[in-house]
């Protein structure tokens, strides 16, 4: 029974789509018959003239030129709504740690490895390939290390996008289309829109005006999760932020806030990271970049964020590089995603191995 219900539902959807298509075709046929084929031909010829097509093109271009910044502004508005306390109120960091602390009384955790996912993330649960990667990492981590996963990196409230106040209806519809829409193009468009939302969040995090609040809010969310995982600032644990792709930017954004809220050293490891590097990183223990030689997305990050180019030697990123805080680990042949990506069976073990090597090195260095 349980398996047949979604099947029946999808059949109903398909039938409904077919009916709609039939009605549209019939209406068009009636219109053509009424207006007359010759008149229709003249009308189409007029409509398809070069000047009209150019005007339509300009109109669509202008629409997107205005739509993109407006979408960004909407994202910032929701962030400030939380900041102003209009949603659920912004908690105080100290209260967060005290109120949510869950002392399990087990083995002391030396390091909390916090995983921040890339822009493909839609909800708490990670896709199967990412889950397999995290499972392998968890198994190979030292006994006194704890992996913190399933964090929604691109929302500031501890909810998934589908529960985001104000836009929940939109996201739910989009997720549904992404999975179940009969038209492949609509599925693709829905997936692109979900990722575009997360790209905007990466943009906000790197923005020198909005970044501080956005990153602070995410740091509070991570602190809340750490408290639930049994983190206690007095135990001298360390934090390791492990970020994939856009998660690398979020990791760099929250690092300094987490250091001041939790009062413990913070280390960053990114793999295939896309980041601006315009945050305060001097007080971070170390920044390690695991990069693939065939990763065009991570390489594009250097152009998208010119502060990382050597042309601007006084940028925050270049200063941190000169201080020797940044270390690069190169994996030959690795791409950003897909069958040659870090979550693929081919490279998964290699990436996990490098992460563990870095953890061991920094442990030895003290």
């Amino acid at each position, binding site marked *: 029974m349980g398996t047949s219900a979604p099947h029946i539902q999808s059949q109903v959807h398909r039938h409904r789509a077919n009916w709609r298509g039939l009605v549209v075709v019939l209406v068009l046929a009636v219109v053509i018959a009424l207006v007359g084929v010759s008149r229709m031909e003249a009308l189409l010829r007029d409509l398809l003239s070069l000047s009209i097509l150019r005007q339509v093109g300009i109109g669509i271009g202008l629409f997107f030129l205005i739509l993109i910044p407006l979408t960004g*502004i909407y994202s910032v508005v929701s962030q400030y709504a939380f900041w102003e306390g209009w949603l659920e109120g912004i908690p105080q960091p100290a209260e967060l740690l005290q109120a949510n602390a869950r002392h399990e009384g087990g083995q002391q955790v030396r390091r909390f490895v916090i995983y921040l996912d890339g822009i493909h993330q839609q909800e708490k649960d990670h896709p199967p390939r990412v889950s397999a990667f995290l499972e392998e990492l968890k198994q190979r981590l030292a006994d006194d290390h704890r992996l913190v996963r399933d964090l929604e990196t691109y929302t500031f409230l501890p909810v998934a996008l589908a529960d985001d106040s104000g836009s929940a209806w939109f996201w739910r519809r989009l997720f549904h289309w992404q999975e179940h829409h009969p038209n492949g193009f609509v599925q693709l468009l829905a997936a692109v829109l979900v990722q575009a939302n997360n790209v*905007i969040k990466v943009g906000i995090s790197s923005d020198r005006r909005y970044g*501080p609040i956005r990153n602070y809010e995410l740091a509070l969310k991570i602190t809340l999760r750490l408290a639930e995982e049994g983190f206690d600032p007095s135990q001298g644990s360390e934090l390791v932020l492990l970020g994939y792709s856009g998660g690398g930017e979020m990791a760099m954004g929250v690092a300094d806030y987490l250091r001041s809220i939790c009062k413990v050293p913070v280390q960053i490891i990114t793999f295939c990271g896309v980041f601006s590097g315009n945050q305060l990183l001097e007080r971070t223990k170390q920044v390690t970049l695991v990069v693939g030689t065939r990763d065009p997305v991570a390489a594009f990050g250097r152009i998208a964020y010119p502060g990382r180019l050597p042309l601007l030697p006084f940028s925050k990123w270049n200063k941190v590089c000169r201080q020797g805080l940044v270390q690069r680990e190169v994996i030959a042949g690795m791409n950003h995603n897909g069958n040659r990506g870090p979550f693929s069976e081919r490279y998964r073990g290699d990436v996990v191995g490098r992460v563990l090597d870095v953890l061991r090195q920094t442990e030895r260095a003290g």
Partner: protein
Amino acid sequence: MLEQRLEQLVENTVVSLPEAHTGLVLVVLVGFSFSLSHVFSLLANRLKPRQILFHVLLDSLVLAAALLIASFINMVLIALHTQLLVEPKQFFNAIGGALAPGLFYVLVAAPYVSDLIAIAIWVLIHLNVITLVHLRFGLPYAEVVPLVTPGYVVALVLIALLFRSSWRRSYDRLASEFRA
């Protein structure tokens, strides 16, 4: 002679500026758009709605004044260079139209692409003013550019000063409070 001409221009401007309704409304709207683009700096510092409204309106007027000063500099330089009779009312109305791309400056509030949008709008405004002066006074582009650039630079400097003293300080203060 120069002093007399300048005095006459200032007098004419003071008398006819309030009559340049189109220009004034557009300049104030552009100022409002500029001001609105940084409204988040006020939200970041948790000002009350009434305080935010007051700041936005005040900033709009200050920005409009900066744009008017820059336009006035343009007008004086053109009048002195061409020895033509420049009618301030018509000039400010036309300049208001040239500043129209600034109405979209509110989009600078968007994250990441803000610098690109701001640069594009400033370039468009300058090109508009150059074309306007070229067409209205029949001057070649080579003469127009040095005539209108000082006013443009003054507008940029005045707005940059406002940004430094008000908005950026708000953003920075907030960031430093967190890290304390």
